[in-house]
C-alpha cells in the first residue's frame, strides 16, 4: 500500500470565540476574523505564515493581513471546507491553510425561527416548513418503519445536553442535568421533536489551521491528523420532500435516510479502520433523532437498532462510543448558518489532544466527526487520529 493521501497534513490550530445567545457588537465578519486570529495563535503561528484561506471571510483575512496572493476556497460548511484545506496541502497548492467561520447579528426577528432555518423555496415556504419540520419528517418515517420511540430520542437529547451542562464554555453550561422525562415534558416544537430535542440558536466564531506535517515540530500544539473523510449529498436542502426512501441510481442500496453511509465507508476505508476503532463520536446533533440515525448509518448498529443503541449506555461518558461531548448544537452552540458545522471537528481535535473541557475520553486515539443530517439531505464525515497516517 502506498503512502496515505493525507500523510503530509496536520491540524495544528483550533479556536472557538465566546459563544452566546447574542454577541453584542459583532457581525459575521468580525467574529469570523476573531476566530481566525485565535486559531493562528493556538497553533503558534503568525498571520503571515498562512498561504491559503477557506470560507466566506478568508478573502477578508488575506486582504487585511496582506498575505495575497494566496490559495482560496469558497467552501463554508465545516467538514467539506476542512477537506478542501487538507487536499490543498496534500496536493501542494498551499502550505498553511486557515478556515474561519462565524455568525452574529443576523437573527433579529425573534418571533420567527432563525433566518437560516427558513428556506424561501417555492415548494416548502408557504407550508411553514423550517429545519425542525424537515428533520421531523425523516424521524417520523423511521418511527413508522422501526417502532423507534419518543423516549429513545429524548434519551439521546438528554445525554448530549448533559455533556453541555458540564462544559464551562457552553451557551447552556449548567442548564441541567436533564432526564429523558424532562425532555419529553418540554413544549412540542415539531412533532416528534420537543424543545429540548432541537438545536439552539446562538452566535459565535470558530476556526482551524492546517499545515504540512513536517512543520509540526516547531509549533505549540500536539498535531492531530486526518485519517479519512467523505461527503454525501442528495440534492439541495429544504427544497424537495425530505423522503427517507429517496434513492440514487448509482448506489440503489442507499437511501437518503441513511445519508452519510457512503461517506463513512469511504472514510473508514481510507483510514483502514471500522466503527469498532472509534473512541469518540463527535456527531452533529441538530435534532435528537439524528444521533440514533447516524449510529445506524455508519454501521455502529443495524437498521432500526439506533433507539436501542442510544439507550444501551454506549453513548454516555464511559460508554463504548461517547457522543457529542460538549453538548453540540443543543447545548454548546449553534453560532449561525454554518459555524456550528465546524464545532464537531474542533471538539474532535480537543479530544485527541486530551484537552476537552467536558467529558474527555481517556486515551482517545480516533474521533469521528460529522456534519449535516437527513432532513438536509447531506452528511459529511471526517476521521481524526493522534497518529500520523
Amino acid at each position, binding site marked *: 500500500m502506498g503512502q496515505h493521501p493525507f500523510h503530509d497534513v496536520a491540524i495544528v490550530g483550533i479556536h472557538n470565540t465566546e459563544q452566546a445567545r447574542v454577541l453584542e457588537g459583532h457581525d459575521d465578519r468580525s467574529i469570523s476574523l476573531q476566530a481566525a486570529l485565535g486559531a493562528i495563535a493556538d497553533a503558534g503561528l503568525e498571520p503571515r505564515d498562512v498561504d491559503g484561506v477557506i470560507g466566506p471571510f478568508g478573502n477578508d483575512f488575506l486582504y487585511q493581513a496582506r498575505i495575497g496572493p494566496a490559495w482560496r476556497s469558497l467552501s463554508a460548511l465545516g467538514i467539506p471546507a476542512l477537506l478542501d484545506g487538507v487536499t490543498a496541502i496534500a496536493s501542494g497548492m498551499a502550505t498553511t491553510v486557515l478556515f474561519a467561520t462565524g455568525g452574529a447579528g443576523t437573527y433579529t426577528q425573534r*418571533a*420567527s*425561527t432563525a433566518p437560516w*432555518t*427558513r428556506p*424561501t423555496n*417555492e*415548494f*416548502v*415556504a*408557504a*407550508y*411553514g*416548513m*423550517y429545519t*425542525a*419540520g424537515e428533520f*421531523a*419528517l*425523516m424521524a*417520523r*418515517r423511521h418511527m*413508522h418503519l422501526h417502532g423507534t420511540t419518543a423516549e429513545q430520542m429524548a434519551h439521546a437529547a438528554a445525554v448530549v445536553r448533559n455533556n453541555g451542562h458540564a462544559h464551562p464554555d457552553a451557551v447552556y453550561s449548567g442548564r441541567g442535568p436533564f432526564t429523558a422525562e424532562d425532555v419529553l415534558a418540554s*413544549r*412540542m*416544537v*415539531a*412533532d*416528534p421533536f420537543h*424543545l429540548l430535542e432541537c438545536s439552539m440558536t446562538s452566535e459565535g466564531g470558530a476556526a482551524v489551521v492546517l499545515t504540512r506535517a513536517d512543520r509540526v515540530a516547531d509549533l505549540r500544539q500536539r498535531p492531530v491528523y486526518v485519517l479519512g473523510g467523505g461527503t454525501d449529498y442528495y440534492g439541495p436542502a429544504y*427544497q*424537495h*420532500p*425530505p*423522503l*427517507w426512501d429517496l434513492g440514487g441510481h448509482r448506489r440503489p442500496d442507499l437511501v437518503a435516510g441513511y445519508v452519510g453511509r457512503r461517506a463513512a465507508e469511504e472514510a473508514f476505508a481510507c483510514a483502514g479502520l471500522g466503527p469498532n476503532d472509534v473512541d469518540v463520536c463527535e456527531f452533529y446533533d441538530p435534532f435528537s433523532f439524528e444521533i440514533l440515525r447516524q449510529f445506524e448509518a455508519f454501521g455502529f448498529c443495524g437498521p432500526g437498532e439506533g433507539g436501542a443503541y442510544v439507550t444501551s449506555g454506549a453513548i454516555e461518558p464511559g460508554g463504548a462510543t461517547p457522543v457529542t461531548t460538549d453538548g453540540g448544537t443543543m447545548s454548546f452552540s449553534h453560532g449561525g448558518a454554518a459555524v456550528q458545522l465546524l464545532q464537531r471537528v474542533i471538539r474532535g481535535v480537543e479530544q485527541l489532544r486530551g484537552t476537552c473541557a467536558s467529558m474527555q475520553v481517556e486515551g482517545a486515539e480516533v474521533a469521528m466527526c460529522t456534519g449535516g443530517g437527513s432532513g438536509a439531505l447531506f452528511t459529511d464525515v471526517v476521521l481524526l487520529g493522534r497518529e500520523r497516517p
Partner: protein
Amino acid sequence: MTLLTPQAGDIPLPVPGALSVPYWEGCAAGELRFQRCSDCGGATHTPAVLCAHCTSTDLVWEVSSGRGEVYSWTTIWRPATPAFEVPYVPLIVEMEEGWHMLADLVGCEHDAVHVGLAVEVEFFAHPGGITLPYFHPRR
C-alpha cells in the same frame, strides 16, 4: 383539538421559477400537475429538466388524480413566522402515480393524521394571488 384550515395570513408565497410555471398554472386551474417521462413512463416532481428514473429530457406535463397516502408527517407548534396559525401539519404525500410532494393537511383535526392516511388534494386561492395545493382526508 384544532380543525386544520389553509393559511390565509401574510405567509411567504411561492415565486414560480422557469421550470415550475406549468405547475402553478395548473394549481390556479384546479389541476395538480406533475411531469411524465415519454421514454420510460416514470413520474417526476419537483419540476425538472431530467426524468428522475431514466434522465430522459422528454418530460410532458400530466394532471394527477390528486389522490395519495400520507408517507410522513409532522405537527408544527412553533411557527416558522408569526403569520402561520398553529398547529399546522406538513405532510409528505405519496401520490397514486408514484411521486411524492410536500403540502399541509386541512379539513380534519390535527391529531387525525397518521402514516397511510388516504388524502386528496384541494386548492386554496391565497389572497396574495397564488393558488396553493393542500390535502384533506379522503371521504
